[in-house]
């Protein structure tokens, strides 16, 4: 049979070639399931059980928990104790929780404002799953006032600093070749800090998620996927420069600010952060460099005025969305995913800004270790590290 014949094989037989292995595979699974070859290993030991609390809601009806089961079998929550006292509860939907399934546990418990509570869920096998509420505060509700307040905080930590950074644009334009290299390297430095910061936060969040989400793998793989896809999109029509590169930086930073918003919103919801003015100011200062970074690749062109507004919105606006999402619909695995995607985006702009920086010079290898570039890079890292001290609690 020659190649020509293979190509001309009718659609039906090509379909069969796929269907036959699929059928065999299905048959094997059915056979294995019916045979239960592991039966002889079954020693009557209780099933492996896992329970992850994804959301906690405190309100006038008591304590609400969104819990996800992840054991080897469907599991049953038999009793719930709050602060070492058995308490009534309702489960919605009721009955055994299948692997991967999530239910709401509603406990009419008179929690105490500002104090800690420990919840212990006992399964029918007697296994216990503890959940700590570090500081009990009412969970924010999606009221207009609440959303507006969060939008304001989001604007202060996201939009304002980016806008402030972009104001430096006219001053930056007067920079010479060395000055521009310094600023670009500064941008790479601050992005490096953000990449490390985001990755570690994503991994930390992923740790809190149910095992079946495979937190660590999810973070690394989605980060890698987002990096590759953005690289591919960015290079669709040549390497990005100028305004395009600025928009990619703004996108990466925007995703980072979305993650930051999630974290602040989540902290609001969990009551674990008394988000003071000092902390908000810290975030604002920390993020001013982001505006400078976005402006850096546009120094040689004359961007239209609207682009500054668009860049500010793209880079800072997601902080507001993150605040809302974080306080209203927080779940560790989705927050981790969002941060991982952001980390991938940051890596993409790091690569592109570095490439752009190298194209600025005739000797591409040497320029990376010139005093201006190395100095800018370290200054970016140092500034971010120092200002981060203000916002870490």
């Amino acid at each position, binding site marked *: 049979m020659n190649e020509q014949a293979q190509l001309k094989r009718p659609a039906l037989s090509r379909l069969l070639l796929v269907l036959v292995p699929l059928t065999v595979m299905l048959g094997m699974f059915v056979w294995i399931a019916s045979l239960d070859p592991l039966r002889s290993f079954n020693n009557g030991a209780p099933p492996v059980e896992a329970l992850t609390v994804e959301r906690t809601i405190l309100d006038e009806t008591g304590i609400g928990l969104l819990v996800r089961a992840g054991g080897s079998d469907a599991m049953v929550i038999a009793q719930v104790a709050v602060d*070492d006292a058995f308490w009534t509860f309702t489960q919605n939907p*009721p009955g055994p929780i299948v692997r991967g399934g999530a239910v709401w546990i509603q406990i009419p418990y008179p929690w105490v404002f500002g104090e800690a509570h420990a919840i212990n869920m006992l*399964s029918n096998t007697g296994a216990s799953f503890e959940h700590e509420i570090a500081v009990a505060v009412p969970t924010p509700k999606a009221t207009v006032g609440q959303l507006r307040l969060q939008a304001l905080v989001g604007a202060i930590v996201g939009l304002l600093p980016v806008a402030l950074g972009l104001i430096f644009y006219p001053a930056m334009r007067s920079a010479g070749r060395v000055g521009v290299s310094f600023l670009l390297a500064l941008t790479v430095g601050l992005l490096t800090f953000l990449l490390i910061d985001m990755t570690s936060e994503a991994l930390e969040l992923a740790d809190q998620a149910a095992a079946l989400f495979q937190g660590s793998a999810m973070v690394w793989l989605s980060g890698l996927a987002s990096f590759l896809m953005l690289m591919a999109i960015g290079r669709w029509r040549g390497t990005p420069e100028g305004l395009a590169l600025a928009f990619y930086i703004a996108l990466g930073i925007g995703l980072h600010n979305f993650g930051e918003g999630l974290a602040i919103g989540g902290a609001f919801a969990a009551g674990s952060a008394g988000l003071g003015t000092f902390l908000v100011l810290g975030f604002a200062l920390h993020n001013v460099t982001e505006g400078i970074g976005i402006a850096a690749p546009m120094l040689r062109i004359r961007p239209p005025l609207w682009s500054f507004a668009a860049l500010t919105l793209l880079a800072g606006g997601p902080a507001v969305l993150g605040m809302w999402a974080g306080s209203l619909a927080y779940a560790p695995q989705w927050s981790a995913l969002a941060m991982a995607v952001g980390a991938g985006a940051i890596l993409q702009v790091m690569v592109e800004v570095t490439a752009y920086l190298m194209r600025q010079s005739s000797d591409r290898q040497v320029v990376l270790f010139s005093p201006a570039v190395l100095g800018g890079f370290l200054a970016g890292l140092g500034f971010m590290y120092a200002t981060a001290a203000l916002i870490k609690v």
Partner: protein
Amino acid sequence: MADASKPSLDPSRRALLVGGLVAAGGAAIAAGSARSQSTADPMAGHDMSTMPADPYAAPMQGMAHGNMTTVGLVDHNRNGFDPTAMLTDWERGTTELLPDGRTLRTFEVDAIDKEIEIAPGIFFPAWTFNGRVPGPALRAKEGERLRIVFRNLGSHPHSMHFHGIHSARMDGVPGAGLIGPGEEFIYEFDAKPFGCHLYHCHALPLKRHMHKGMYGLFVIDPDPERHPENATVAASRLLGSPENAHWQEMAMVMNAFDTNFDGANEVYAANTVGQAYMNEPIRIDKSRPVRIYLVNVTEFDPINSFHLHANFFDYYDTGTTLTPTLRTVDLIMQCQAQRGILEFSFADHEDGMYMFHAHQSEFTELGWVGMFDVRSSAK
């Protein structure tokens, strides 16, 4: 549903006791979705609806403190033992007369592995004596010859170690009555001293064998003839005597279960089932005095206690005296394996529900709490 399976209990009363499982408002939402929960009286517990209108101190629907309870009921039939029946279920064995005129009393006890439900929906892989936790409440008379035929039908070595007076060979420790699975051993000794005692498995590791459920009461009634100075008191303690018939006697074993085997208890109780006597209060005829044989076998926590509401009692530590060792108290504490006899009366009280519980609040709220339903005999 739960009420239907418990016809002996007045539903409205039980609902009140269960303590507003879900108060009216919450119940409306819960009714469709709740598992094994029943609607109950919203007045139970102290209702927070009278509090000021601060959004977070204010009327939390169904948040009366009466919600401090387990959800659902234990299936006593499946367990094969009922905490209420266990209160008065004394194991007296079989008797025969020995040539010297003394009585020989024989008990038969089997060690059995068994999964038991210790709180609604929570199952515990117990090791039991005769399939129940606590094991049978053995009762004999001072001076009798006792013979306990012990068979180990379990999966681990076990023994019966009696807190009484006996020879080293009968001690239930390794080399003296500790037997492997499938084996049998006969313990034999005299019933002395009179008092409220216990037995437990003394296989090692002791902690595991104790908290898995291998313990029980071992009561030796005083022989009135041997205590002429207190013959009436002694007679009132002798099960089966006319004087004793007037008393309402009950056996209570304060125990707890470490369901996740982390060295701390998840469920506390008297007679195994957490909250059992809240769901089904103990009926007391107020015209007759009450006597409780109480032992503490709680593992991991150094002490346990018994507190009676609205009343005081006399206490006989270890029950080895005929005069109280403590008079007019409403709380006693016992370390592990400590025991004693409580005597009290509700004769002058109003009818009503009188609570009793450990006065370690944690134990109380994790199941060791109950109610005496005190009424005149006529009602």
